């Protein structure tokens, strides 16, 4: 056993011991796509004590984006052939009402995967006659980069760079989730990256109002195990926190430069979330002063209501009301190669993670898309 494995084992023993003392099933919710992936990738779920679960909340940027916002983006790619649409890789396969950016691209749309908002600014600067739109999704983690990109575009005098922003804020989402009255978990494993920006103190109002244990956690498997153990101990001892178990990156008050950047370029706005509906002051809209860089204003775009795909329970999955295997489409109608809901598409999506890294008996039966290929091969030979 490596030192890391030993350390992890110790945290899991703490978790098991606290869970035994509590003597009822426990569930904690992580609200960060990176936690979702890290927990599955490390096989942590398979090591959790009996009766303890880690649920995924509204932390995957793609999964929380409303169907209307997704359509807006994909329609832009489909209909506007004279512009370049830059997007993070995760958005490329998400299904809109009329297809995905991937299918738009195969039909001739100029869709580029970028690694940062600044890549899109560079593209715009390279050919100032050509419109470049950056599809900005994500929480407080990616929003400062979008803000910086807008400021850079302004500094360079670019008139061909705009941002289609659907940035979201984590605290209003947590509040909306807790207000929904369907809370079936015992504590939040708070996101590391977002907390780097907003600071650990930002969660105090949540803890005070809802009296729910909260722990900020890092992304290593050991750190997630530690945070889960701490959450269980807090439940056992009646503590609430918030506790910061990621102090090497997260300070009490966050990153003031990034926060100032956000405040300069964006203002809070009521936005629509998948599953949570319209949540007051839960998103970021480009301030009027930067309207030149707002794709919604530049192109007169307005998100229409679009229903979520029929049968799809992504909304219930990201609010912890069900697990992916409870969705009737999971693994049969909806698979990574033929995805219906965003949670199956995004690599940070819970369904994709369950499908890719899954472990339960039922998962195993449906886990491999290639099983149908095997049947076809057998039929041929």
């Amino acid at each position, binding site marked *: 056993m490596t030192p890391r*494995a030993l350390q992890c084992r110790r945290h899991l023993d703490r978790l098991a011991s606290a869970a035994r003392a509590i003597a009822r099933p426990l569930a904690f919710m992580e609200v960060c796509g990176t936690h979702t992936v890290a927990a599955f990738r490390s096989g942590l779920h398979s090591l959790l004590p009996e009766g303890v679960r880690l649920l995924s909340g509204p932390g995957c940027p793609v999964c929380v984006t409303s169907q209307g916002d997704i359509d807006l983006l994909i329609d832009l790619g489909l*209909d506007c052939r004279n512009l370049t649409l830059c997007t993070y890789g995760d958005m490329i396969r998400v299904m809109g009402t*009329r297809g995905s950016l991937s299918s738009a691209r195969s039909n001739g749309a100029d869709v580029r995967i970028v690694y940062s908002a600044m890549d899109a600014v560079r593209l715009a600067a390279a050919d100032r006659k050509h419109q470049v739109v950056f599809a900005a999704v994500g929480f407080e983690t990616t929003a400062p980069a979008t803000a910086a990109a807008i400021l850079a575009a302004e500094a360079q005098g670019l008139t061909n760079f705009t941002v289609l922003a659907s940035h979201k804020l984590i605290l209003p989402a947590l509040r909306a989730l807790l207000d929904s009255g369907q809370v079936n978990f015992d504590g939040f494993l708070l996101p590391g990256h977002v907390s780097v920006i907003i600071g650990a103190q930002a969660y105090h109002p949540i803890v005070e109002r809802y009296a729910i244990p909260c722990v900020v956690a890092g992304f290593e498997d050991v750190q997630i195990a530690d945070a889960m153990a701490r959450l269980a101990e807090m439940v056992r001892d009646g503590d609430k926190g918030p506790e910061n178990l990621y102090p090497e990156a997260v300070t009490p008050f966050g990153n003031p430069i990034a926060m100032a950047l956000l405040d300069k370029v964006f203002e809070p706005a009521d936005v629509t979330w998948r599953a949570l509906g319209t949540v007051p002051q839960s998103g970021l809209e480009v301030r009027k002063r930067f309207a030149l860089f707002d794709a919604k204003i530049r192109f007169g775009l307005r998100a229409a209501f679009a229903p979520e795909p029929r049968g799809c329970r992504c909304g219930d999955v990201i609010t912890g009301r069900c697990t992916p295997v409870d969705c009737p489409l999971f693994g049969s109608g909806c698979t990574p190669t033929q995805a219906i809901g965003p949670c199956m598409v995004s690599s940070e999506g819970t369904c994709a993670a369950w499908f890719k890294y899954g472990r339960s008996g039922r998962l195993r039966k449906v886990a*491999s898309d*290639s099983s*149908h290929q095997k049947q076809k091969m057998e039929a041929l030979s």
Partner: protein
Amino acid sequence: MIDMSDLFKGSSTIASAAPGINSAHTPRSAARDTITLAHGGGGQLTDELIASVMLPRLANDALNQLLDSAIVDLAGTRQRLAMTIDGYVVQPLFFPGGDIGRLAISGTINDLAVSGARPLGIALGLILAEGLERGILERIMDSLARTAAQANVKIFTGDTKVVGRGQADGIFITTAGVGLVPEGRRFHPDQVRPGDLILLSGTIADHGLAVMLAREMPDVKCSLVSDVAPLNDMIDSLLAAAPGVVFMRDPTRGGLAGVAADLAVRTGYTIELDEPAIPVHPATLHAAEMLGLDPLDVANEGKVFIVVRPDSAAAALAALKGHELGRDAAIIGKITAAREGLCELITEIGGRRVLQKPYGEQLPRIC
């Protein structure tokens, strides 16, 4: 200000685009009815395309095996013919550790070698784009010739076509290879049985990440280099030393995960891989983290995945480690008796997860 009206010519405006506007095409059929980049990723979508479009039309005994090379009987000899073909469209044409010329020879030689064949010769198809600099073509051909000499194979025949500017990206290369499989040698998934061990000839994901970094982040300075190399010499040494080798693949697109998951499906056994035993360069790990990719899914061009009887494993490992291309070789897993047709990864902390063939296109995560 730029007049935006022309952006929307011939199309409905975005704001008024109603759901289901193109009712003949549901989103899912739209996604199915066109080829996307992901169909070429060597993952599940490529498999689906082959199974649904190619095989129903082209099926025959040789093709249906879907191995790295097709193996066919030759009249009048007990040796059998191995045949393979591959297209190379990599960008950039030159990347740390290699170029499209070295890749085009290595990839095809390796497909022959892992099938147990001794390469005989290669047919070379070149598609050049109008405007390609002659000097670039010469550099690529120099590298291709050097790699062929290193692998001790000749280019038997070739074809050159030029297409208009924009119809190809600089140069596309196709190489077909033929080789001979000695009598009595048969590497096939049906030879694999419980208790067999899995060896990997070295570190994973170096090629895919070196190319991706060179393409996506050309300004990033990194010590990462592609592992692209012809492996026939190393595989000769391996087979001379380890008679218990029963199956080999080169984990190119789809990476180690693709090859292991595929073998699990094809044998029906559960395969266990030990994550800490899988060799990865620290630079590769960092690059993968930065791009949000799992090294297990990323392409290799100079590595071989080997299934060997347990009594031959030590000899196989020693033979690999004795070759300069196999110095980092390791035993990374085993075939178990369970019949789930799945590959399970046992992680460093002792957790278990299912390892699946990647979906298709390698997409970086958001954060």
